[in-house]
């Protein structure tokens, strides 16, 4: 099992803020909108550098999505910022009609996704957003794993024409992705080559998969670990190559089982290469208040849950 050294832990939302700040310097067409959550979204630096390219919308997310669609008419590249819950479920029809169906080049940037939002509880812990967004035709869905990758993804999507949903979070997590790693939309990243099982993880679960990989190595299990940062378009080629080699698959994500990465991988395997699959995900439940670590343990989204899923799926392998 490869080692993944890191010198610091950071929140992915700060990676978004840093990426947006850099875009402010490099791309004059980038504009930003926020629905009264500047601090939470780490948008301060962009706003300080480019006050004329920032629009404070207030607590009016539906209007924000419409404004963003309108700003593209004139060549702007709008980045909207609010919590994942208010970026998706609250404004689904605005995104569907004014952005996705209209083919608008809007980047919907969503923080505080999933259980790791923590103490605020289930009202804010959206676990359905990947599903909602990936169902929209032509919508790209990205869920990077750490600070560096979120920064790189933020920068990359400015040059990626079309609507994008970029999902990140609140907690501080190990920042292990190389700072100079180019972000390629739709291209998974093999973190550890293995032969016994394929673990496809996204977002905060990528680090948990690395931790699980070490525990599995201690048990003599050689896991292939792949970071699927783009859920749509899915890197079908990479997933199938790995699955055909290992003959069994585990997916891991901070999302509902319905509609998430596991759901996409299951569809792909069912069509192309039916193989045993276990999903580490929230199983048809809302979250609750608690610390991020407590919640990830209670809802089965940690390294222990991944190890258990691996052992289960390997027992099913023919």
């Amino acid at each position: 099992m490869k080692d993944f050294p890191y010198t610091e832990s950071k929140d992915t939302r700060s990676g978004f803020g840093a990426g947006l700040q850099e875009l402010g310097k490099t791309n004059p067409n980038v504009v930003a909108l926020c629905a009264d959550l500047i601090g939470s979204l780490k948008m301060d630096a962009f706003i300080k550098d480019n006050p004329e390219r920032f629009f404070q919308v207030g607590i009016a997310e539906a209007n924000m999505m419409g404004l963003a669609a309108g700003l593209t008419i004139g060549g702007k590249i709008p980045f909207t910022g609010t919590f994942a819950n208010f970026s998706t479920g609250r404004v689904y029809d605005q995104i569907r009609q004014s952005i996705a169906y209209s083919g608008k080049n809007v980047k919907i940037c969503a923080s505080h996704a999933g259980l790791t939002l923590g103490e605020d509880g289930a009202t804010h812990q959206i676990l359905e957003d990947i599903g909602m967004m990936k169902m929209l035709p032509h919508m790209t869905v990205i869920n990077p794993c750490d600070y560096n990758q979120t920064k790189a993804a933020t920068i990359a999507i400015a040059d990626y024409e079309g609507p994008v949903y970029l999902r990140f979070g609140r907690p501080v997590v190990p920042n292990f992705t190389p700072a100079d790693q180019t972000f390629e939309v739709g291209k998974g990243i093999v973190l550890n080559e293995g032969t016994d099982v394929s673990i496809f993880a996204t977002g905060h679960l990528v680090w948990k998969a690395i931790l699980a990989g070490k525990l599995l190595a201690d048990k003599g299990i050689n896991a292939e670990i792949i970071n699927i940062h783009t859920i749509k378009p899915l890197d079908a080629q990479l997933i199938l190559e790995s699955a055909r080699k290992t003959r069994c698959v585990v997916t891991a994500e901070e999302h509902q089982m319905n509609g998430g990465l596991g759901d996409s991988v299951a569809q792909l395997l069912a069509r192309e290469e039916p193989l045993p699959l276990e999903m580490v995900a929230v199983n048809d439940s809302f979250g609750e208040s608690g610390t991020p670590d407590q919640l990830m343990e209670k809802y089965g989204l940690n390294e222990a849950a991944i190890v258990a899923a691996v052992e289960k799926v390997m027992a099913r392998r023919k």
Partner: protein
Amino acid sequence: MAQESSFAASSETHTPTPTKSVDQLKQIAAQVRRDIVRMVHAVNSGHPGGSLGCADLLVALYFKVMKHHPEPFDMNGVGQDLFFLSNGHISPVFYSVLARSGYFPVGELATFRKLNSRLQGHPATHEHLPGIRVASGSLGQGLSVAIGAAQAKKLNNDDRTVFVLMGDGELEEGQIWEAAMYAPHHKVDNLIAFVDRNGQQIDGPTEKIGGLGDLRAKFEAFNWRVLETDGNNLEKLLPTIEEAQSLLGQGQPIMVLMDTQMGFGVDYMMGTHKWHGTAPNDEQLEKALQQLMVEEAGDY
């Protein structure tokens, strides 16, 4: 069907020019109204009532007021006035005016609401119909989009104007009021919005269904500059639009409350919500066309 081939037979388009007389605009509006009733009749669906009521406004904008370049169509529209239709169900009037002002062939109106057409039931960009800049139909979204486009114009140092039309029933949508609060706060003063105040929505009169109340007081309280006019009288509508244009650039968005009659121009469709989303039959179409004839119209 004779009614459909009429679109193809009438190949005349009207090049946008500021020199059109009121009489010429009235003739174009009559032609647009004939297109509307033919289009909805041909597919036995669509929304003739609101379309007929807004024909005068769209003709005034596209044939007199707006500076715009139909060909080649430019989505970004920098240097052009832009129009957004928020109440997308009145697509027949939008399509007719776009075709008649040169965005696409008039004959294509015959494909309205049919399979593989660019003229979807509600306006869409997906099929790349020239003149459409955003999909609409799910109500309440167009004002926000228009404001965003107006702010893009400011960023681009583009001094042209953004126009948007909303239905009055549509004002029951919450997003409208989010946008209504935003635009004055951000001094979006390159925007002229219109409300088609015909007083009707699908289930009946707006005051019975949603209770819109005093719209002037409401928008003024939101710090809009509000004008009122008769949307079915070009002699009154055109000066009101000129007045609205004279108020641009003064720190406030402009709202024109436009009294109209749903179904205007066809007597049996007027003064009722019955023709909001109902198409005329053959006999009713003939009656409507007879009422919409004016001399020198050119296509009959």
